[in-house]
Protein backbone atom coordinates (compact mmCIF):
# COMPACT_ATOMS: atom_id res chain seq x y z
CA UNK A 1 0.00 0.00 0.00
CA UNK A 2 2.71 2.44 1.01
CA UNK A 3 4.84 2.24 -2.07
CA UNK A 4 1.82 1.99 -4.33
CA UNK A 5 0.34 5.26 -3.16
CA UNK A 6 3.59 7.10 -3.60
CA UNK A 7 4.13 5.68 -7.09
CA UNK A 8 0.59 6.66 -8.04
CA UNK A 9 1.20 10.18 -6.82
CA UNK A 10 4.45 10.44 -8.75
CA UNK A 11 2.73 9.14 -11.87
CA UNK A 12 -0.13 11.60 -11.42
CA UNK A 13 2.29 14.48 -11.09
CA UNK A 14 4.21 13.32 -14.16
CA UNK A 15 1.13 12.71 -16.28
CA UNK A 16 -0.96 15.70 -15.27
CA UNK A 17 0.59 18.21 -17.70
CA UNK A 18 -1.00 16.21 -20.50
CA UNK A 19 -4.37 17.31 -19.15
CA UNK A 20 -3.51 20.93 -18.47
CA UNK A 21 -4.75 23.10 -21.34
CA UNK A 22 -3.20 26.43 -20.53
CA UNK A 23 -1.01 28.48 -18.24
CA UNK A 24 -3.90 29.16 -15.90
CA UNK A 25 -4.40 25.43 -15.37
CA UNK A 26 -0.70 25.05 -14.56
CA UNK A 27 -1.11 27.90 -12.11
CA UNK A 28 -3.94 26.13 -10.33
CA UNK A 29 -1.96 22.89 -10.28
CA UNK A 30 0.99 24.67 -8.68
CA UNK A 31 -1.34 26.17 -6.10
CA UNK A 32 -2.72 22.71 -5.34
CA UNK A 33 0.80 21.40 -4.92
CA UNK A 34 1.82 24.17 -2.54
CA UNK A 35 -1.34 23.76 -0.47
CA UNK A 36 -0.78 20.03 -0.41
CA UNK A 37 2.71 20.51 1.03
CA UNK A 38 1.25 22.54 3.91
CA UNK A 39 -1.51 19.99 4.40
CA UNK A 40 0.81 16.99 4.59
CA UNK A 41 2.65 18.72 7.43
CA UNK A 42 -0.53 19.92 9.10
CA UNK A 43 -1.94 16.42 8.87
CA UNK A 44 0.97 15.10 10.93
CA UNK A 45 -0.08 17.51 13.65
CA UNK A 46 -3.86 17.21 13.41
CA UNK A 47 -4.47 13.73 12.06
CA UNK A 48 -1.63 11.75 13.59
CA UNK A 49 -0.72 13.62 16.74
CA UNK A 50 -4.32 14.55 17.34
CA UNK A 51 -3.57 18.19 18.06
CA UNK A 52 -5.13 21.15 16.33
CA UNK A 53 -3.94 24.43 14.93
CA UNK A 54 -6.22 27.18 13.71
CA UNK A 55 -3.32 29.52 13.07
CA UNK A 56 -1.08 27.79 10.54
CA UNK A 57 -1.63 30.51 7.96
CA UNK A 58 0.44 32.60 10.33
CA UNK A 59 3.45 30.33 9.74
CA UNK A 60 2.70 30.35 6.02
CA UNK A 61 2.61 34.15 6.02
CA UNK A 62 5.77 34.45 8.09
CA UNK A 63 7.58 32.18 5.67
CA UNK A 64 6.34 34.21 2.74
CA UNK A 65 7.03 37.63 4.21
CA UNK A 66 10.26 36.52 5.85
CA UNK A 67 11.77 35.46 2.58
CA UNK A 68 10.24 38.41 0.72
CA UNK A 69 11.56 41.00 3.14
CA UNK A 70 15.05 39.51 3.38
CA UNK A 71 15.27 39.33 -0.39
CA UNK A 72 13.54 42.56 -1.41
CA UNK A 73 14.58 44.90 1.40
CA UNK A 74 17.91 43.48 2.44
CA UNK A 75 19.10 42.03 -0.85
CA UNK A 76 19.67 38.50 0.35
CA UNK A 77 19.96 35.88 -2.41
CA UNK A 78 16.60 34.18 -2.58
CA UNK A 79 17.57 30.59 -1.80
CA UNK A 80 19.22 31.92 1.36
CA UNK A 81 16.28 34.16 2.30
CA UNK A 82 13.94 31.23 1.86
CA UNK A 83 16.07 28.93 4.00
CA UNK A 84 16.43 31.62 6.66
CA UNK A 85 12.69 32.26 6.71
CA UNK A 86 11.92 28.57 7.14
CA UNK A 87 14.55 28.22 9.87
CA UNK A 88 13.23 31.33 11.60
CA UNK A 89 9.67 30.06 11.58
CA UNK A 90 10.81 26.68 12.88
CA UNK A 91 12.57 28.43 15.75
CA UNK A 92 9.50 30.53 16.51
CA UNK A 93 7.29 27.45 16.45
CA UNK A 94 9.70 25.74 18.82
CA UNK A 95 9.64 28.64 21.27
CA UNK A 96 5.90 29.20 21.13
CA UNK A 97 4.99 25.54 20.90
CA UNK A 98 6.36 24.58 24.29
CA UNK A 99 3.84 26.51 26.37
CA UNK A 100 0.97 26.30 23.89
CA UNK A 101 1.00 22.51 23.45
CA UNK A 102 0.35 22.01 27.14
CA UNK A 103 -3.23 22.97 26.23
CA UNK A 104 -5.81 20.58 24.90
CA UNK A 105 -8.85 20.57 22.65
CA UNK A 106 -10.67 23.85 22.34
CA UNK A 107 -8.11 25.71 24.41
CA UNK A 108 -5.33 24.68 22.07
CA UNK A 109 -7.50 25.59 19.11
CA UNK A 110 -8.07 29.08 20.46
CA UNK A 111 -4.45 29.60 21.42
CA UNK A 112 -3.27 28.77 17.91
CA UNK A 113 -6.08 30.90 16.53
CA UNK A 114 -4.98 33.85 18.62
CA UNK A 115 -1.40 33.40 17.55
CA UNK A 116 -2.31 33.29 13.88
CA UNK A 117 -4.42 36.41 14.14
CA UNK A 118 -1.72 38.32 15.97
CA UNK A 119 0.74 37.45 13.21
CA UNK A 120 -1.74 38.51 10.52
CA UNK A 121 -2.44 41.83 12.20
CA UNK A 122 1.22 42.59 12.74
CA UNK A 123 1.96 41.84 9.10
CA UNK A 124 -0.85 44.10 7.94
CA UNK A 125 0.07 46.93 10.30
CA UNK A 126 3.83 47.15 9.91
CA UNK A 127 3.46 48.59 6.44
CA UNK A 128 6.89 50.12 6.42
CA UNK A 129 8.35 46.66 6.33
CA UNK A 130 5.62 44.63 4.71
CA UNK A 131 3.80 47.06 2.47
CA UNK A 132 0.73 46.77 4.66
CA UNK A 133 -2.64 45.56 3.40
CA UNK A 134 -1.63 46.21 -0.20
CA UNK A 135 1.17 43.71 -0.02
CA UNK A 136 4.64 43.81 -1.49
CA UNK A 137 6.42 42.49 -4.54
CA UNK A 138 8.81 39.60 -4.20
CA UNK A 139 11.90 38.87 -6.28
CA UNK A 140 11.90 35.55 -8.10
CA UNK A 141 13.69 32.51 -6.77
CA UNK A 142 17.09 32.51 -8.40
CA UNK A 143 20.51 30.95 -7.84
CA UNK A 144 23.75 31.51 -9.71
CA UNK A 145 21.99 33.85 -12.10
CA UNK A 146 19.37 31.32 -13.12
CA UNK A 147 15.83 32.11 -12.06
CA UNK A 148 13.05 29.62 -11.54
CA UNK A 149 10.43 31.24 -13.70
CA UNK A 150 7.42 30.25 -15.74
CA UNK A 151 4.55 27.98 -14.89
CA UNK A 152 6.10 24.85 -16.39
CA UNK A 153 9.35 25.07 -14.46
CA UNK A 154 7.53 25.82 -11.23
CA UNK A 155 5.11 22.96 -11.83
CA UNK A 156 7.93 20.43 -12.00
CA UNK A 157 9.71 21.96 -9.02
CA UNK A 158 6.59 21.95 -6.83
CA UNK A 159 5.53 18.51 -8.09
CA UNK A 160 8.91 16.99 -7.25
CA UNK A 161 8.93 18.69 -3.86
CA UNK A 162 5.45 17.38 -3.10
CA UNK A 163 6.40 13.81 -3.92
CA UNK A 164 9.50 14.21 -1.77
CA UNK A 165 7.55 15.65 1.17
CA UNK A 166 4.96 12.87 0.98
CA UNK A 167 7.76 10.29 0.91
CA UNK A 168 9.38 11.85 3.98
CA UNK A 169 6.06 12.05 5.81
CA UNK A 170 5.21 8.41 5.13
CA UNK A 171 8.66 7.32 6.29
CA UNK A 172 8.22 9.22 9.52
CA UNK A 173 4.79 7.74 10.10
CA UNK A 174 6.08 4.19 9.66
CA UNK A 175 8.80 4.73 12.21
CA UNK A 176 8.86 4.80 16.01
CA UNK A 177 8.39 8.58 15.76
CA UNK A 178 5.19 8.13 13.80
CA UNK A 179 3.96 5.50 16.20
CA UNK A 180 4.76 7.81 19.09
CA UNK A 181 2.53 10.49 17.56
CA UNK A 182 -0.31 8.08 16.96
CA UNK A 183 0.14 6.71 20.47
CA UNK A 184 -0.19 10.06 22.14
CA UNK A 185 -3.30 10.64 20.10
CA UNK A 186 -4.67 7.27 21.18
CA UNK A 187 -3.91 7.58 24.89
CA UNK A 188 -1.43 10.12 26.13
CA UNK A 189 -1.01 8.50 29.54
CA UNK A 190 -0.34 5.06 28.05
CA UNK A 191 2.11 6.63 25.62
CA UNK A 192 4.00 8.23 28.49
CA UNK A 193 3.96 4.88 30.23
CA UNK A 194 5.87 3.22 27.39
CA UNK A 195 8.43 5.96 27.58
CA UNK A 196 7.14 8.41 25.00
CA UNK A 197 7.89 12.00 25.95
CA UNK A 198 4.60 13.32 24.66
CA UNK A 199 5.50 16.98 25.05
CA UNK A 200 8.62 16.55 22.93
CA UNK A 201 6.85 14.63 20.18
CA UNK A 202 3.95 17.08 20.01
CA UNK A 203 6.45 19.88 19.74
CA UNK A 204 8.34 18.10 16.97
CA UNK A 205 5.16 17.63 14.95
CA UNK A 206 4.24 21.27 15.53
CA UNK A 207 7.64 22.55 14.44
CA UNK A 208 7.80 20.30 11.39
CA UNK A 209 4.34 21.33 10.23
CA UNK A 210 5.20 24.99 10.81
CA UNK A 211 8.40 24.64 8.80
CA UNK A 212 6.54 23.02 5.92
CA UNK A 213 3.94 25.77 6.01
CA UNK A 214 6.69 28.39 5.95
CA UNK A 215 8.40 26.65 3.05
CA UNK A 216 5.17 26.58 1.06
CA UNK A 217 4.56 30.20 1.99
CA UNK A 218 7.98 31.29 0.83
CA UNK A 219 7.66 29.39 -2.42
CA UNK A 220 4.21 30.88 -3.01
CA UNK A 221 5.64 34.36 -2.59
CA UNK A 222 8.52 33.80 -4.99
CA UNK A 223 6.29 32.08 -7.50
CA UNK A 224 3.64 34.77 -7.58
CA UNK A 225 6.15 37.59 -7.36
CA UNK A 226 3.79 39.21 -4.90
CA UNK A 227 2.41 38.60 -1.42
CA UNK A 228 -0.45 40.09 0.58
CA UNK A 229 -1.53 39.65 4.22
CA UNK A 230 -4.56 37.70 3.01
CA UNK A 231 -2.36 34.62 3.01
CA UNK A 232 -1.81 34.94 6.75
CA UNK A 233 -5.41 35.42 7.84
CA UNK A 234 -7.72 33.31 9.97
CA UNK A 235 -9.70 32.45 6.85
CA UNK A 236 -6.65 30.90 5.22
CA UNK A 237 -5.89 28.95 8.42
CA UNK A 238 -9.41 27.58 8.30
CA UNK A 239 -9.04 26.65 4.64
CA UNK A 240 -5.90 24.69 5.48
CA UNK A 241 -7.47 22.82 8.39
CA UNK A 242 -10.53 22.11 6.30
CA UNK A 243 -8.39 20.61 3.56
CA UNK A 244 -6.80 18.25 6.06
CA UNK A 245 -10.03 17.30 7.77
CA UNK A 246 -11.95 17.07 4.52
CA UNK A 247 -9.35 14.88 2.86
CA UNK A 248 -9.18 12.60 5.84
CA UNK A 249 -7.24 12.84 9.04
CA UNK A 250 -4.35 10.44 9.64
CA UNK A 251 -4.08 9.92 5.92
CA UNK A 252 -1.21 11.56 4.07
CA UNK A 253 -2.83 10.97 0.69
CA UNK A 254 -6.06 12.25 2.19
CA UNK A 255 -4.29 15.50 2.96
CA UNK A 256 -3.16 15.76 -0.66
CA UNK A 257 -6.65 14.91 -1.91
CA UNK A 258 -8.21 17.43 0.42
CA UNK A 259 -5.84 20.13 -0.77
CA UNK A 260 -6.65 19.30 -4.37
CA UNK A 261 -10.43 19.31 -3.97
CA UNK A 262 -10.64 22.41 -1.82
CA UNK A 263 -8.22 24.39 -3.96
CA UNK A 264 -10.11 23.47 -7.10
CA UNK A 265 -13.56 24.05 -5.65
CA UNK A 266 -13.35 27.86 -5.41
CA UNK A 267 -12.00 27.91 -8.97
CA UNK A 268 -15.21 26.30 -10.14
CA UNK A 269 -17.23 28.46 -7.84
CA UNK A 270 -15.93 31.77 -9.21
CA UNK A 271 -18.34 31.18 -12.04
CA UNK A 272 -21.06 31.55 -9.48
CA UNK A 273 -19.62 34.91 -8.47
CA UNK A 274 -21.77 36.23 -5.64
CA UNK A 275 -22.96 32.79 -4.66
CA UNK A 276 -19.42 31.53 -4.18
CA UNK A 277 -19.33 32.07 -0.44
CA UNK A 278 -22.75 30.57 0.19
CA UNK A 279 -21.95 27.47 -1.81
CA UNK A 280 -18.52 27.08 -0.22
CA UNK A 281 -19.99 27.27 3.26
CA UNK A 282 -22.77 24.86 2.35
CA UNK A 283 -20.35 22.36 0.79
CA UNK A 284 -18.15 22.55 3.88
CA UNK A 285 -21.01 21.86 6.23
CA UNK A 286 -22.53 19.15 4.08
CA UNK A 287 -19.36 17.13 3.64
CA UNK A 288 -18.33 17.42 7.27
CA UNK A 289 -21.75 16.33 8.47
CA UNK A 290 -21.97 13.33 6.21
CA UNK A 291 -18.31 12.42 6.00
CA UNK A 292 -16.97 13.31 9.45
CA UNK A 293 -13.87 11.20 8.98
CA UNK A 294 -13.02 12.94 5.75
CA UNK A 295 -13.11 12.00 2.11
CA UNK A 296 -10.38 9.39 1.72
CA UNK A 297 -11.18 7.29 4.83
CA UNK A 298 -14.88 7.37 3.96
CA UNK A 299 -14.10 6.23 0.42
CA UNK A 300 -11.72 3.56 1.74
CA UNK A 301 -14.40 2.21 4.06
CA UNK A 302 -16.99 2.22 1.29
CA UNK A 303 -14.56 0.43 -0.99
CA UNK A 304 -13.79 -2.15 1.68
CA UNK A 305 -17.49 -2.72 2.29
CA UNK A 306 -18.13 -3.11 -1.43
CA UNK A 307 -15.28 -5.63 -1.65
CA UNK A 308 -16.72 -7.66 1.20
CA UNK A 309 -20.12 -7.74 -0.48
CA UNK A 310 -18.55 -8.84 -3.76
CA UNK A 311 -16.83 -11.81 -2.12
Amino acid at each position, binding site marked *: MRARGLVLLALAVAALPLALPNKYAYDVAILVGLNAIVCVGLNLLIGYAGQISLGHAGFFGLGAYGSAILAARYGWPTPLSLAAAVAGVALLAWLVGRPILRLRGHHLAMATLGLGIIVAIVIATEDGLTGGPDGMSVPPLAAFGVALAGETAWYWAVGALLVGVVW*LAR*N*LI*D*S*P*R*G*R*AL*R*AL*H*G*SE*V*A*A*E*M*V*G*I*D*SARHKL*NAFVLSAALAALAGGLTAHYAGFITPAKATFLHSIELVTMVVFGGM*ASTFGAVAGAAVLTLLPQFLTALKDYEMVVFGAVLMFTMIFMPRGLVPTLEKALAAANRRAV
Partner: protein
Amino acid sequence: MLLRTEELSKAFGGVAAVDAVSIAIEEGTVHALIGPNGAGKTTLLNLLCGIYRPTRGRIVFAGRDLAGRATHEYAAAGIGRTFQNLQVFFNMTALENVMTGRHLLEPCGFAAAALRLPARVREERACRLEAEALLEFVGLAQWRDTPADAMPYGALKRLEIARALAARPRLLLLDEPAAGLNPVETAEIDRLIHSLVTRRVTVVLVEHNMKLVMGVSQHVLVLDYGRVLAEGEPAAVRANPRVVEAYLGAEAR
Protein backbone atom coordinates in the same frame (compact mmCIF):
# COMPACT_ATOMS: atom_id res chain seq x y z
CA MET B 1 15.72 -4.18 46.93
CA LEU B 2 14.30 -3.17 43.57
CA LEU B 3 11.75 -0.61 44.72
CA ARG B 4 11.45 1.14 48.03
CA THR B 5 9.14 3.94 49.10
CA GLU B 6 9.62 6.13 52.13
CA GLU B 7 6.65 7.88 53.69
CA LEU B 8 5.03 8.17 50.27
CA SER B 9 1.98 10.41 50.35
CA LYS B 10 -0.48 11.89 47.90
CA ALA B 11 -3.13 14.36 48.87
CA PHE B 12 -5.90 15.73 46.65
CA GLY B 13 -7.02 18.97 48.17
CA GLY B 14 -7.50 18.04 51.79
CA VAL B 15 -7.96 14.33 51.22
CA ALA B 16 -4.96 12.04 51.78
CA ALA B 17 -5.47 9.30 49.22
CA VAL B 18 -2.16 7.71 50.12
CA ASP B 19 -0.74 8.42 53.54
CA ALA B 20 2.89 7.79 54.55
CA VAL B 21 3.20 4.46 52.81
CA SER B 22 6.59 2.78 53.18
CA ILE B 23 7.00 -0.45 51.28
CA ALA B 24 9.85 -2.57 49.95
CA ILE B 25 9.69 -4.77 46.88
CA GLU B 26 12.28 -7.43 46.16
CA GLU B 27 13.33 -8.18 42.63
CA GLY B 28 11.81 -11.25 41.05
CA THR B 29 8.76 -11.43 43.31
CA VAL B 30 5.06 -10.97 42.79
CA HIS B 31 3.46 -8.50 45.18
CA ALA B 32 -0.27 -8.05 45.48
CA LEU B 33 -1.86 -4.81 46.56
CA ILE B 34 -5.33 -5.30 47.97
CA GLY B 35 -7.81 -3.34 49.98
CA PRO B 36 -11.43 -2.22 49.94
CA ASN B 37 -12.64 0.22 47.30
CA GLY B 38 -11.26 3.69 47.78
CA ALA B 39 -8.32 2.42 49.82
CA GLY B 40 -5.87 4.17 47.55
CA LYS B 41 -4.55 1.19 45.59
CA THR B 42 -4.76 2.78 42.16
CA THR B 43 -3.42 6.04 43.54
CA LEU B 44 -0.44 4.20 44.95
CA LEU B 45 0.07 2.48 41.64
CA ASN B 46 -0.13 5.82 39.84
CA LEU B 47 2.51 7.15 42.19
CA LEU B 48 4.79 4.18 41.59
CA CYS B 49 4.73 4.69 37.84
CA GLY B 50 4.96 8.45 37.84
CA ILE B 51 1.49 9.37 36.71
CA TYR B 52 0.95 11.22 39.96
CA ARG B 53 3.58 13.35 41.66
CA PRO B 54 3.90 12.56 45.35
CA THR B 55 2.98 15.25 47.83
CA ARG B 56 5.62 13.89 50.16
CA GLY B 57 8.06 11.03 50.37
CA ARG B 58 10.55 9.21 48.19
CA ILE B 59 10.34 6.51 45.56
CA VAL B 60 13.67 4.76 45.23
CA PHE B 61 13.91 2.46 42.22
CA ALA B 62 17.16 0.58 41.62
CA GLY B 63 18.94 3.07 43.82
CA ARG B 64 17.52 6.25 42.23
CA ASP B 65 14.92 8.56 43.76
CA LEU B 66 12.34 9.07 41.04
CA ALA B 67 9.88 11.21 42.99
CA GLY B 68 8.81 14.28 41.05
CA ARG B 69 10.11 13.12 37.68
CA ALA B 70 8.01 12.96 34.52
CA THR B 71 6.04 9.83 33.72
CA HIS B 72 8.14 8.83 30.74
CA GLU B 73 11.23 8.96 32.93
CA TYR B 74 9.74 6.28 35.17
CA ALA B 75 9.22 4.20 32.06
CA ALA B 76 12.80 4.85 31.00
CA ALA B 77 14.00 3.69 34.41
CA GLY B 78 12.34 0.32 33.81
CA ILE B 79 8.81 0.54 35.16
CA GLY B 80 5.86 -0.59 33.05
CA ARG B 81 2.16 -0.60 33.72
CA THR B 82 -1.23 -1.80 32.53
CA PHE B 83 -4.43 0.08 33.19
CA GLN B 84 -7.65 -0.80 34.93
CA ASN B 85 -9.73 1.18 32.42
CA LEU B 86 -8.01 0.06 29.24
CA GLN B 87 -5.68 2.62 27.72
CA VAL B 88 -5.06 0.68 24.58
CA PHE B 89 -4.12 2.64 21.47
CA PHE B 90 -7.45 2.11 19.77
CA ASN B 91 -6.27 3.91 16.65
CA MET B 92 -3.75 1.12 15.92
CA THR B 93 -3.68 -2.60 15.30
CA ALA B 94 -2.63 -5.08 17.98
CA LEU B 95 0.80 -5.44 16.40
CA GLU B 96 1.29 -1.69 16.23
CA ASN B 97 0.31 -1.38 19.89
CA VAL B 98 3.05 -3.76 20.89
CA MET B 99 5.55 -2.22 18.49
CA THR B 100 4.87 1.13 20.10
CA GLY B 101 5.57 -0.45 23.45
CA ARG B 102 9.14 -0.95 22.29
CA HIS B 103 9.67 2.78 21.96
CA LEU B 104 12.39 3.01 24.58
CA LEU B 105 14.45 0.36 22.87
CA GLU B 106 14.49 2.17 19.54
CA PRO B 107 16.28 5.47 19.53
CA CYS B 108 15.23 6.93 16.23
CA GLY B 109 16.85 9.98 14.76
CA PHE B 110 14.76 12.32 12.63
CA ALA B 111 16.92 12.01 9.54
CA ALA B 112 17.20 8.23 9.83
CA ALA B 113 13.43 7.95 10.02
CA ALA B 114 12.54 10.52 7.38
CA LEU B 115 15.05 9.20 4.87
CA ARG B 116 14.37 5.55 5.64
CA LEU B 117 18.04 4.69 6.02
CA PRO B 118 18.91 0.98 5.75
CA ALA B 119 19.75 0.68 9.44
CA ARG B 120 16.29 2.00 10.24
CA VAL B 121 14.65 -0.52 7.91
CA ARG B 122 16.52 -3.33 9.66
CA GLU B 123 15.50 -2.03 13.09
CA GLU B 124 11.89 -1.80 11.96
CA ARG B 125 11.91 -5.42 10.85
CA ALA B 126 13.45 -6.52 14.16
CA CYS B 127 10.84 -4.50 16.02
CA ARG B 128 8.04 -6.17 14.10
CA LEU B 129 9.46 -9.66 14.80
CA GLU B 130 9.81 -9.04 18.50
CA ALA B 131 6.31 -7.59 18.71
CA GLU B 132 4.95 -10.68 16.94
CA ALA B 133 6.78 -12.90 19.42
CA LEU B 134 5.21 -11.02 22.32
CA LEU B 135 1.75 -11.34 20.83
CA GLU B 136 2.41 -15.06 20.54
CA PHE B 137 3.55 -15.14 24.17
CA VAL B 138 0.30 -13.65 25.46
CA GLY B 139 -1.77 -15.75 23.10
CA LEU B 140 -2.90 -13.00 20.74
CA ALA B 141 -1.16 -14.08 17.55
CA GLN B 142 -4.40 -14.29 15.59
CA TRP B 143 -5.27 -10.67 16.39
CA ARG B 144 -2.04 -9.39 14.92
CA ASP B 145 -3.42 -7.09 12.24
CA THR B 146 -6.79 -6.44 13.84
CA PRO B 147 -7.54 -2.82 14.77
CA ALA B 148 -7.59 -2.68 18.53
CA ASP B 149 -11.07 -1.21 18.58
CA ALA B 150 -12.37 -4.45 17.05
CA MET B 151 -10.87 -6.75 19.69
CA PRO B 152 -12.73 -8.32 22.59
CA TYR B 153 -12.24 -7.11 26.14
CA GLY B 154 -10.31 -10.15 27.36
CA ALA B 155 -7.89 -9.92 24.46
CA LEU B 156 -7.32 -6.22 25.12
CA LYS B 157 -6.32 -6.92 28.70
CA ARG B 158 -3.64 -9.27 27.43
CA LEU B 159 -2.65 -6.79 24.74
CA GLU B 160 -1.85 -4.22 27.39
CA ILE B 161 0.43 -6.74 29.08
CA ALA B 162 2.18 -7.51 25.79
CA ARG B 163 2.64 -3.80 25.14
CA ALA B 164 4.06 -3.21 28.59
CA LEU B 165 6.44 -6.14 28.21
CA ALA B 166 7.75 -4.80 24.90
CA ALA B 167 9.76 -2.22 26.81
CA ARG B 168 11.48 -5.02 28.81
CA PRO B 169 10.58 -3.48 32.16
CA ARG B 170 12.20 -4.62 35.38
CA LEU B 171 9.03 -3.83 37.29
CA LEU B 172 5.54 -4.35 35.89
CA LEU B 173 2.52 -2.81 37.60
CA LEU B 174 -0.72 -4.59 36.74
CA ASP B 175 -3.89 -2.71 37.61
CA GLU B 176 -6.74 -5.20 38.00
CA PRO B 177 -5.65 -7.43 35.13
CA ALA B 178 -8.49 -9.87 35.78
CA ALA B 179 -11.28 -7.31 36.14
CA GLY B 180 -14.27 -8.21 34.00
CA LEU B 181 -12.80 -11.54 32.88
CA ASN B 182 -14.51 -14.93 33.05
CA PRO B 183 -12.82 -17.88 34.86
CA VAL B 184 -11.18 -19.18 31.68
CA GLU B 185 -9.68 -15.78 30.85
CA THR B 186 -8.65 -15.30 34.48
CA ALA B 187 -6.76 -18.60 34.37
CA GLU B 188 -4.96 -17.26 31.31
CA ILE B 189 -3.88 -14.18 33.24
CA ASP B 190 -2.75 -16.39 36.10
CA ARG B 191 -0.59 -18.38 33.73
CA LEU B 192 0.79 -15.19 32.22
CA ILE B 193 1.79 -13.75 35.56
CA HIS B 194 3.55 -16.98 36.51
CA SER B 195 5.49 -16.89 33.28
CA LEU B 196 6.48 -13.29 33.93
CA VAL B 197 8.32 -14.48 37.00
CA THR B 198 10.37 -16.87 34.89
CA ARG B 199 11.26 -13.88 32.70
CA ARG B 200 12.61 -12.19 35.81
CA VAL B 201 10.04 -9.41 35.74
CA THR B 202 9.02 -8.16 39.17
CA VAL B 203 5.26 -7.77 39.40
CA VAL B 204 3.06 -5.58 41.59
CA LEU B 205 -0.56 -6.35 41.06
CA VAL B 206 -3.72 -4.67 42.23
CA GLU B 207 -6.53 -7.17 42.22
CA HIS B 208 -9.89 -7.86 43.78
CA ASN B 209 -9.97 -11.51 42.68
CA MET B 210 -8.71 -13.14 45.90
CA LYS B 211 -8.21 -16.55 44.37
CA LEU B 212 -5.87 -15.07 41.79
CA VAL B 213 -4.08 -13.00 44.38
CA MET B 214 -3.53 -15.85 46.81
CA GLY B 215 -2.44 -18.20 44.05
CA VAL B 216 0.11 -16.01 42.34
CA SER B 217 1.70 -13.68 44.88
CA GLN B 218 4.51 -14.16 47.35
CA HIS B 219 3.76 -11.01 49.30
CA VAL B 220 0.50 -9.21 49.97
CA LEU B 221 0.05 -5.61 51.03
CA VAL B 222 -3.28 -4.43 52.37
CA LEU B 223 -4.22 -0.77 52.09
CA ASP B 224 -7.07 0.91 53.90
CA TYR B 225 -7.80 4.63 53.87
CA GLY B 226 -4.48 5.25 52.17
CA ARG B 227 -2.40 3.55 54.85
CA VAL B 228 -0.79 0.14 55.10
CA LEU B 229 -3.08 -2.02 57.17
CA ALA B 230 -1.16 -5.29 57.02
CA GLU B 231 1.41 -7.06 54.95
CA GLY B 232 3.04 -10.44 54.68
CA GLU B 233 2.50 -13.83 53.13
CA PRO B 234 -0.90 -14.41 51.54
CA ALA B 235 -2.15 -16.93 54.06
CA ALA B 236 -1.15 -14.78 57.01
CA VAL B 237 -2.78 -11.68 55.59
CA ARG B 238 -5.97 -13.51 54.78
CA ALA B 239 -6.29 -14.69 58.36
CA ASN B 240 -5.55 -11.23 59.80
CA PRO B 241 -8.71 -10.09 61.62
CA ARG B 242 -8.12 -6.43 60.88
CA VAL B 243 -8.03 -7.24 57.16
CA VAL B 244 -11.26 -9.17 57.38
CA GLU B 245 -12.87 -6.27 59.22
CA ALA B 246 -11.72 -3.73 56.67
CA TYR B 247 -13.20 -5.71 53.81
CA LEU B 248 -16.33 -7.09 55.36
CA GLY B 249 -17.12 -4.80 58.26
CA ALA B 250 -16.94 -5.34 62.02
CA GLU B 251 -19.84 -7.82 62.10
CA ALA B 252 -17.91 -10.30 59.96
CA ARG B 253 -15.41 -10.96 62.75
